[in-house]
């Protein structure tokens, strides 16, 4: 082999070895959400669409969730690296031996609330629930929250009517159920809008106003991920929370809605805008609260509620699984 050929060969080898390096710059991450794409996951969508993940060196595949597509299962099966799960899912999984950690709390206020018509007496105290027909999703966390509220107020179940509900609002629209569980920033907006078109006003009943702080969606990862790749966890979380901060900034509203629209085709622009407004108040209720802050007391209360409701058999000491707050 002459000198010229040797140089060419070396150059070729250099090019071949450099190509994967350039390509491998983005670390592939799977991120499983709790529910379908809609405005309530605006920050997750915007972290990707706004290039925050890319900037941090990640190629993130943000996937929709559903009751069947559970982030905790996906983490254990190594199909996802990060996920979103509600506090009851996390605590239940810990009770059954799952090795997961909570790294950020997305919702500072639980969006699970109840809607009722304003022509009905306002719910000022828990005693005002008496005599009403209240919807709950049997098996869902709203049932647990309602049971806790009733126990707190000393209301017996025979003092009101608990009715099982699902996604169809018809029983509420037909006034067969007075107080209907909704996610305040998604279904709540849609129902409010629907009723306002019929010239009916609505109120929302928020359990947090009555001292029941049941934590909602949080970002989770596996113990092994945290142990083996703490840098990735930190960088992913920074990028994600940056995406959320930017998405919740009213100045970016137009860009955020445009990004959400690509995924959420079920709602119109007006609804999406209202949903984004509602989401802001739940994710960042005050300028002083940093997005992602873990409310340890609320988590402890959630665990205690679930213990009281016999949804878990033993304490899981949830505070030992909340990582982000401690490190910061």
């Amino acid at each position, binding site marked *: 082999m002459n000198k010229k050929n040797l140089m060419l060969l070396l150059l070729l080898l250099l090019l071949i070895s450099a190509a994967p390096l350039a390509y491998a710059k983005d670390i592939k991450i799977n991120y499983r959400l709790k529910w379908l794409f809609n405005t309530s996951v605006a920050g997750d969508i915007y972290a990707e669409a706004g290039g925050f993940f890319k900037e941090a060196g990640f190629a993130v595949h943000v996937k929709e969730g559903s009751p069947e597509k559970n982030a*905790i299962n996906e983490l254990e099966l190594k199909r996802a690296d990060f996920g979103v799960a509600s506090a009851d899912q996390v605590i*239940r*999984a810990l009770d*059954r031996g799952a090795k997961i950690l909570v790294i950020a709390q997305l919702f500072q206020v639980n969006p699970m609330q109840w809607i009722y018509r304003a022509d009905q007496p306002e719910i000022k105290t828990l005693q005002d629930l008496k005599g009403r027909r209240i919807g709950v999703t049997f098996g869902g966390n709203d049932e647990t929250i309602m049971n806790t509220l009733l126990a707190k107020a000393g209301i017996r179940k025979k003092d009101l009517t608990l009715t099982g509900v*699902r996604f169809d609002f018809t029983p509420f629209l037909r006034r067969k159920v007075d107080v209907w569980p909704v996610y305040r920033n998604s279904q709540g907006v849609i129902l409010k809008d629907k009723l306002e078109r019929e010239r009916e006003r609505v109120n929302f009943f928020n359990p947090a106003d009555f001292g029941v702080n049941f934590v909602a969606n949080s970002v989770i990862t596996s113990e092994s991920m945290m142990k083996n790749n703490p840098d990735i966890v930190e960088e992913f979380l920074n990028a994600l929370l940056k995406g959320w901060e930017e998405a919740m900034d009213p100045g970016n509203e137009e860009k955020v809605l445009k990004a959400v629209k690509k995924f959420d085709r079920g709602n119109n622009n007006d609804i999406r805008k209202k949903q984004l407004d509602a989401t802001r108040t739940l994710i960042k209720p005050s300028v002083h609260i940093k997005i992602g802050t873990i409310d340890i007391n609320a988590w402890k209360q959630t665990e205690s509620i679930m213990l009281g409701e016999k949804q878990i058999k033993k304490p899981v000491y949830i505070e030992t699984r909340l990582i982000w707050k401690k490190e910061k």
Partner: protein
Amino acid sequence: MLFRRIFQFLIVYIIGIAFLLMIKMALSLSNYVIPGVPLIVETAGQVFKDYFFDVMSTMSVTVLGQCISIVMAFTVGIAGRKSSWMGSFIKVTAYNIQAYPIVALAPIIFILLGDGFIPRLLIASMICYFPLLLSVLGIMATPVKDIEHFYIATGRMRWQLEVKIRAFENLNKLVTVISGSATLAMAGTIVAEFIAANAGIGYSIRVALYQSDLAKILVALFMIGIIISIYQGILETMGEQIKIRWSVSKQGEAL
């Protein structure tokens, strides 16, 4: 027949559970993702009674739904057996209705009928009825030329006689299809309960799914399997009895 059915189901169920447990062990999964045997047994102890009544509730709808679907399938099948315009219209209408997925129709059914007993029955019948209809149409639209020719030639053929001849000559097929449709009726009822009901084992599975409680779901599947095996075994035994009686009466007529 009955015990064979149950035994066969137990084999399938145990193989399924063993497969899940192998995955659990191989991937070191927690009880949250795949429950271990002690947890399944413990859960069974907790929910057995409730789930038994749930399955029986589902079963009652299944049996009724299957009866309705048999009547519907025979009515439409007999009416649509002719190659006339009306026969063809009935067939096309029946096919078109079935083309809509039940999950899409369920909200409409739910709005019209609420979430009680009737929607469960309706959805169970709709899911069960179409495969039955296809078989009934196939049987009723195919002439038994050797026998029918005699009655046509002698001018004694009536539609009732035509239906009887075709049913008699295809009795084995009909019994198999009817006993097989029990599974569909059960599946239809469970789907209905899952999406638009507040009772039955399908509803309990939905609640367990909300809690990501696979142990409860496995217990529910076990109970569904056992009960449907018993029901199918009974149907098959009944079918055998009917066949024996009919063949005896046929032999008597021949003698």
